[in-house]
């Protein structure tokens, strides 16, 4: 038998409980808690490309292909270098022959099946090189669209592919606005730049960073304010590629031109 007093007390308690907004509860992520308590800065890999320093030698592409066992003569690559030539008539001429694996050995622009285009030196107003690699997006569309979850993002921000799980549908290749993905010619699964995850995990630099003789490529931890890469990103004018897709790319560029695709 419930008394009136008990009934009123319980009603008041119940109302108080309901009034407590759900927002008052914070769902605690164990990983986040661990990182905060550890006192160490978190880890989030980011890349910095100084386009002023790139000469288009292609040593980074060579090193990447060898390090990551992407068949040397296959016409795909985890990283590549693009050449941009803008002429006086305002036209853009750009190419990346064999992903610039052997550098740019001729001044002629590679037009694919259209052959080559010779551009006179006196017609050029500006020309430069832009190295490309996976942007390890904060919001990777490739990982979003993978139907089986074979592509995933690590805690430190790198997007990887599980070769034992990928079904090879190619949806991730379609979803990437940067064209960094392809099918591995040997394993027949989706393949991409991993920031040399196997190396950076051991404290080494990526193969491309190690191979660049001019220091055009740098990798660092964007959560560490003392990291040289972070310092540059925080204090200098840098840009990212195709921010309009909302992917929050983590490869930053110094000297990014509006012509860069």
């Amino acid at each position, binding site marked *: 038998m419930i008394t009136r007093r008990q009934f009123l007390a319980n009603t008041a308690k119940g109302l108080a409980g309901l009034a407590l907004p759900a927002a008052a509860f914070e769902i605690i992520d164990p990983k986040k808690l661990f990182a905060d308590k550890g006192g160490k800065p978190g880890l989030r890999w980011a890349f910095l490309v100084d386009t002023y320093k790139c000469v288009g030698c292609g040593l980074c592409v060579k090193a990447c292909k060898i390090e990551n066992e992407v*068949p040397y*003569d*296959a*016409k*795909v*690559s985890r990283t*590549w270098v693009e050449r941009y030539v803008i002429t006086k008539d305002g036209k*853009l*001429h*750009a*190419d*990346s022959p*064999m*992903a610039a694996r052997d550098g740019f050995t001729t001044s002629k622009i590679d*037009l*694919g*099946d*259209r052959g080559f285009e010779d551009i006179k030196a006196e017609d050029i107003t500006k020309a430069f090189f832009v190295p*490309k690699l996976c942007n390890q997006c904060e919001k990777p*569309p490739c*990982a*979003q*669209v*993978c*139907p*089986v*979850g074979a592509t995933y993002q690590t805690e430190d921000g790198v997007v990887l592919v599980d070769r034992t*799980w*990928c*079904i*090879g*549908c*190619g*949806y991730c*290749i*379609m*979803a*990437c*606005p*940067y*064209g*960094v*993905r*392809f*099918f591995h*010619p040997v394993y*027949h*699964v989706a393949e991409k730049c991993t920031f040399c995850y196997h190396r950076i995990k051991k404290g080494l630099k990526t193969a491309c960073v190690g191979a660049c003789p001019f220091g055009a490529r740098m990798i660092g931890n964007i959560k560490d304010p003392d990291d040289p890469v972070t310092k540059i990103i925080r204090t200098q004018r840098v840009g990212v590629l195709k921010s309009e*897709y*909302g992917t929050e790319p983590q490869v930053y560029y110094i000297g990014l031109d509006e012509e860069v*695709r």
Partner: protein
Amino acid sequence: MHVHGELWTLKEFFVLPNEYIYWSVQIVMYPFMTGLVAGAFVLSSLYHVFGIKQLKDMARFALVFSFALLPVAMVPLQMHLQQPQRGIEVFMTPHFTSAIAAFGIVFSTYGAIVASEIWFVYRKYIVEMALSLRKKMDKTLSEKVLHLVYTVLTLGAYDISEEALHKDEKAVKVLAGIGIPVACFLHGYAGFIFGSVKANALWMTPLMPVIFIMSAVVSGIALCILTYTITMEIKKFRATRSKSSYALYQSKEEIKGVELHEIRMTSKYLVFFMIFAISLELLDLIFRGYTAVKTWDILRSVIYGRDFTDIFVLQYGVGNLLPFILFLIPGLTVRRSAVASILVLFGVFMMRWNVVIGGQSFSLTFDGYMHYVMPIIPTSIETFKEGLGGVLTVAALPFILFWILSKIFPVFGFEKTAH
């Protein structure tokens, strides 16, 4: 060493090293086949749900045909996977942020609905066949097999009283009713797979699912008209040859009358859905041209330049306008409707082609093009699967399946033959 896509992709101007036509003709076949499934089902539902009596004969036919098409819708997907043995993982370990992950759920829901609807439609027939075959002494081997099939198909329910059959009818109506949104979802969702790819300037539009549904219904109805005509012609041919001896209960003239009537009715719905489909496609095109965002330059050069013949001549001209006129000229004949249906099917196929291949025919740089050269003569398994051979295989499969299915579920006049 060839990279996947290299064998059939031609690159022009500034194209990124890893860009190829990764989704080739099999991915054109996928929405084309699912479209036929959904369209055939919607046609059959017009009779069952909305009680459009004129479509009775066509409805049963369309239902069985839709079921025959269903497993085939999965084949092109399976054929284009680089790791086909892992394809089942889409069902087993779906990753739900992906549009493709819902495939297993949508596909099996739809399959279950169509299968149960067929069961209810044919339940009386199944029971009668099972009982008559059971009574029969010294059965031939094929009769023994059929007896087993029909006995299993009864699922132990032998009640075919007036009351039970009435309940069946009710169930069919409910299932057909649920089936319409699910069929639209099945196909609209195929449109979503494309429409949600934000990296692709041609694909990304919220109209894509709706456009896909409308053209799906159009193609489904066209295929039903065509297959119905062929089946009826065969029947007519048999009726003239066998005169009275071979127990066909209808004369040639009777069949002719029914055939023409059904086709005239069905083609009205076809034209109706065609108007919707074309309006939406044109709306999309006009909107893109009018808003002319950054990507319009390259899209315009593809739509009005490189793919002009594919889009305006083959898709809109031969595949839409011509059959539209053919259907609308008064005094529609069976032959004319068959020709128009073939053209409609071709038009819808070209629409899928122009979306799937057209969407990959320009580079992410917006400054280069890719051209798909469909492999005709296969030189490897890859060029077979992603070339003409694969297309013909996929296109032939539903007819083979339909032929087998119609042995068990006769699509015409089974009420009379069952006794």
